[in-house]
């Protein structure tokens, strides 16, 4: 069972409610919902899906493309992020 059934995603100034299935990353869920979310390597290396986790908690398999400054600012890699609590998630790509 997933911690959350959907999450809020902001991209290009628009808010979306994105359903997410158990085991999906935030990026996978966004793409499945038809959102033109930015991504490239999907392995946590390139940083293209870097975004701001404005609310909620996620676990990331890799944080290679995140600097200490990025982490301090609350940035995450959408391709690596899976919900890790029931706290509502708000992911903002407009950084």
């Amino acid at each position, binding site marked *: 069972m997933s911690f959350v059934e959907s999450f809020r995603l902001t991209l290009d100034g628009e808010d979306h409610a994105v359903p997410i299935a158990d085991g999906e990353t935030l990026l996978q869920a966004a793409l499945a919902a038809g959102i*033109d979310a*930015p*991504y*490239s*390597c999907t392995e946590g*290396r*390139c*940083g*293209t899906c*870097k975004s701001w986790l404005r609310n909620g908690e996620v676990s990331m398999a890799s944080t*290679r*493309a995140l*600097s*200490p*400054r*990025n982490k301090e600012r609350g940035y995450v890699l959408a391709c690596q992020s899976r919900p890790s609590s029931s706290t509502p998630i708000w992911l903002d*790509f*407009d*950084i």
Partner: protein
Amino acid sequence: MQIGTIDSVWRYPVKGMRGEEVPHIYTAYTGLMGDRIYGVVAADGDPGHPWHTGRNQEEFVLYKASYVSSEELLLPKNLDATYSEWEPGIDPLYPDADAFKVNVETPTGVTYDDIEDPAFIADLEKLTGRSLRIHTTQRGIFDARPVSIFSLSAAAKLGEELGMNVDKRRFRANFYVEWDDQDDPFYENTLVGKTLKIGEWLEVVIVERDPRCTMITLDPDTAEETPRLLRHLARKHAGDAGVFAAVLQRGRVNKGDRITLK
């Protein structure tokens, strides 16, 4: 057929640090002379890409590395002889290792006369909290290919699309070029698989487009991050900017050299 000219020639003595523009350079099969000779390896780095760069410390792109013997590292002393006497070419003699000594100036103005001075690494470790060491090789440290090419028109077009000034130096290319064909700002993308002659001697084959990472989001003068640049590139340009080349015939390249399609 001429397709463009070399706007400027750049090399990066230390991988990830600020580059230096040079008036001309010898380009070998292994890349530009003096390009990415040093790298900083992180003990906790990814096994496939262990380098400490701006991805880990944004201000690293502001570190200025300079060769103490810069002039000596532009052209091998016996280059002309290898052209004329040993056709199709004997590998020119590079200077001794001492000539590759590089000094480093940090963004805060601290200068180290030699990057291999233990104080440099000790201070960087203290600043970053990482276990680091210097790696050096005269063959160059490249992520993918030994030569990278990026056009001024691509930088300008990306800037236009994003409504911001896109400094070409974000793309850390070896050769910035100006294409004669101004109708396609990303003309280099059409050259994959083709062979170019640059100047009198150098021949390269364009191997592939250059997939970009977070490094291009860093302003080369302030290290401030603009993630939307990479985001835009991914969504509108398949994540690529510029092209990689492999060297088929070595030689000297000068600023202003003509680029012809073979």
